[in-house]
């Protein structure tokens, strides 16, 4: 069976694997809820990592389900070659595995190695179609993020040097051990180290002005990979930033990392706005949107306090789910019209009512309309900012969010409504992509109505880990 090239068998293995991953994570989540953090050598699972791990496995399952139908269509059109499918699935799962290690890493060196691992695996996936654009995006991605991530390694080495100075021994690279001695670290070198790390992991997270690779990579990758890149990968990089933020906050006071995060967050929100308004390419639009939302998470972390941090973590989850849904819906619409230009995609509601509804839902949620989940977390970030009196930052943030709201709704409604373009395929909507999308849409709507205790618990405890 392992040597098969049959698309259906491969897809079945893919979905089963993702389901097993989800089940294992749920077991792990229960263990952590009952008995606190668990350590396994270089790896350690605490509530902070668990929040990101849950997002990762849920999205992986949704991606696997979506891929079943997507692949059928992609193979029939010739976008994917049937004989390359095995390596495609292997790469996707290697990509997911490196992200799992990133999220679970306790040793900061392992965190870096896994982070670079995600770059290597995903770079191949971004160029998978082998088109001119895809290869260009892949090259830009691997060069820019590798430059960035080497800054991250340098920052890690500096913080390791500071820790080894205080406490000799092998523990000096483990995050939990560094946290124990963090108040005694030399603030000077931690400051320089944190700036290096912020630039490094910030590049991978897509924070402006290091975001230049992001719209290209996220728009040129195969749709399921786009969903993983935008939904989880940039969040894993944020987790790296958060780990170092806690060290820096303990070593040189919370104001310093908060100031750095606020700066990058504001730049990201401001830089993304004009590109969102002027965009015609649907997937690029979503890519720039990720820059904006990563900026909002950084703002939440920067405003700090329990409310801001909780809001930022909740926003990580909300944006991950919503953005994956948006990429799925966009990918389906693009396949139907054979074009990524939003001026061509018209009257989607007429040919694909369910897909169009899901696309509208995702767009409304991304724009921050109540009662969807992103509205809730954006409100928390705002409240934290007002509570701490960051008036200038709040004013800029609100202006940009309002502008983006208008721009996004304009783009989305012009795609959904109106006269259906003649070029559109009138085929019935396929089941499997819809199933994957409905799964995510259900989670998105539920998270907007109220946060269940099983998610609220880890989020609260993770907030305590960060705020201290």
């Amino acid at each position, binding site marked *: 069976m392992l040597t098969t090239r049959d698309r259906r068998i491969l897809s079945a293995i893919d979905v089963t694997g993702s389901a097993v991953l989800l089940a294992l994570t749920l077991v792990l989540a229960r263990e952590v809820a009952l008995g606190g953090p668990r350590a396994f050598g270089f790896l350690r699972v605490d509530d902070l990592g668990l929040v990101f791990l849950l997002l990762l496995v849920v999205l992986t399952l949704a991606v696997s389900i979506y891929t079943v139908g997507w692949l059928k269509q992609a193979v029939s059109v010739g976008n994917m070659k049937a004989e390359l499918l095995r390596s495609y699935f292997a790469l996707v799962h290697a990509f997911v595995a490196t992200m799992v290690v990133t999220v679970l890493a306790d*040793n900061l*060196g*392992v965190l*870096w*190695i896994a982070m*670079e*691992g995600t*770059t*290597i695996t995903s*770079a*191949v996936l971004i*160029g998978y179609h*082998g*088109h*001119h*654009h895809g*290869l*260009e*995006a*892949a*090259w*830009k991605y*691997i*060069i820019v993020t*590798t*430059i960035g991530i*080497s*800054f991250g*390694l*340098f920052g890690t*080495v*500096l913080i*390791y*040097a*500071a820790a*080894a*100075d205080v406490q*000799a*021994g*092998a523990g*000096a*690279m483990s995050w939990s051990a560094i946290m124990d001695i963090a108040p005694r670290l*030399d603030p*000077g*070198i931690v400051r*320089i180290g944190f700036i290096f790390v912020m630039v490094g992991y910030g590049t991978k997270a897509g924070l402006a002005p290091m975001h230049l690779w992001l719209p*290209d990579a996220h728009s*040129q990758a195969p749709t399921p990979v786009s969903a993983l890149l935008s939904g989880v990968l940039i969040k894993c990089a944020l987790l790296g930033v958060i780990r170092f933020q806690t060290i820096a906050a303990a070593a040189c006071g919370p104001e310093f990392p908060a100031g750095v995060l606020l700066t990058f967050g504001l730049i990201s929100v401001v830089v993304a706005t004009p*590109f969102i308004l*002027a*965009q015609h390419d649907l997937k*690029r639009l979503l890519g720039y949107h990720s820059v904006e939302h990563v900026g909002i998470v950084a703002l939440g972390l920067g405003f700090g306090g329990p409310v801001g941090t909780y809001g930022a973590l909740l926003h990580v989850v909300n944006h991950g789910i919503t953005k994956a849904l948006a990429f799925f819906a966009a990918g389906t619409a693009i396949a139907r019209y054979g074009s990524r230009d939003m001026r061509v995609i018209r009257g989607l509601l007429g040919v694909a009512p369910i897909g169009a509804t899901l696309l509208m839902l995702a767009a409304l949620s991304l724009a921050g309309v109540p009662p969807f989940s992103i509205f809730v977390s954006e409100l928390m970030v705002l409240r934290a900012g007002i509570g701490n009196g960051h008036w200038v930052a709040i004013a800029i943030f609100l202006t940009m969010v309002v502008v983006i709201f208008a721009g996004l709704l304009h783009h989305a409604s012009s795609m959904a409504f109106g006269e259906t373009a003649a070029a559109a395929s009138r085929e019935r909507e396929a089941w499997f992509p819809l199933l994957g999308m409905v799964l995510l849409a259900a989670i998105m709507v539920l998270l907007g109505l109220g946060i269940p205790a099983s998610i609220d618990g880890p989020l609260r405890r993770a907030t305590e880990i960060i705020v201290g």
Partner: protein
Amino acid sequence: MSAEAVHAIIDDIGSLLLFTMILIVAAGQIYRAIYAVAAQSLLIAVAAAVLATATGNSDLWVIAAITLAVKAIVLPWVLHLVVQRMNVRREVEAVIPIAATLALAVVIVVVSFQLSTSLGPVRQAITGNALPVGIALTLTGVLVMATRKTALTQMVGLFASENGIFFTAMAVTQGMPLIIEIGVILDVILAALVMTILVLRVRSTVDADIADLDRLRG
């Protein structure tokens, strides 16, 4: 070896490393840049061997051996092979003039030394001038990657930048854990492999050089 002697040797190696970096920045031909980065990796391996004898840390011998084999011999050889196979006519192709990059590199070196003199107690945790030299190498490597259009020169910049990080890491009193260093080297090899594949794929499928890829904008 006395501590002063080790400091002196590490500082000497550091200045040689900066010299190779200047050769890389100034290289007008891709071959020269590849030879310079190979020489630089060789120096890193020597530094690891010196630190291994001085501290008695046997892990550093392993790192010296791996650095010598992988970064001083195999990777430059692979780059060399790719250059021959692609029959590269276009050489380095700088975005800004090479003289300007050299001036920027000088600024980077000065700033790195300035920055690390401002750090007090932690300097003792790192042997000699390894910290400012490491920062300077890393940043200059990034400078090379950012200011060159051709793929292979960008890869040379990446290796140089990685060398800087290694130099600082091994000069930290304790040395980094062996398994981490090996993991980092492995990542560098894999990244180089994937980049090489991409370069060849761009060549074979769209018949273009990486430097010609500029369609994605806005």
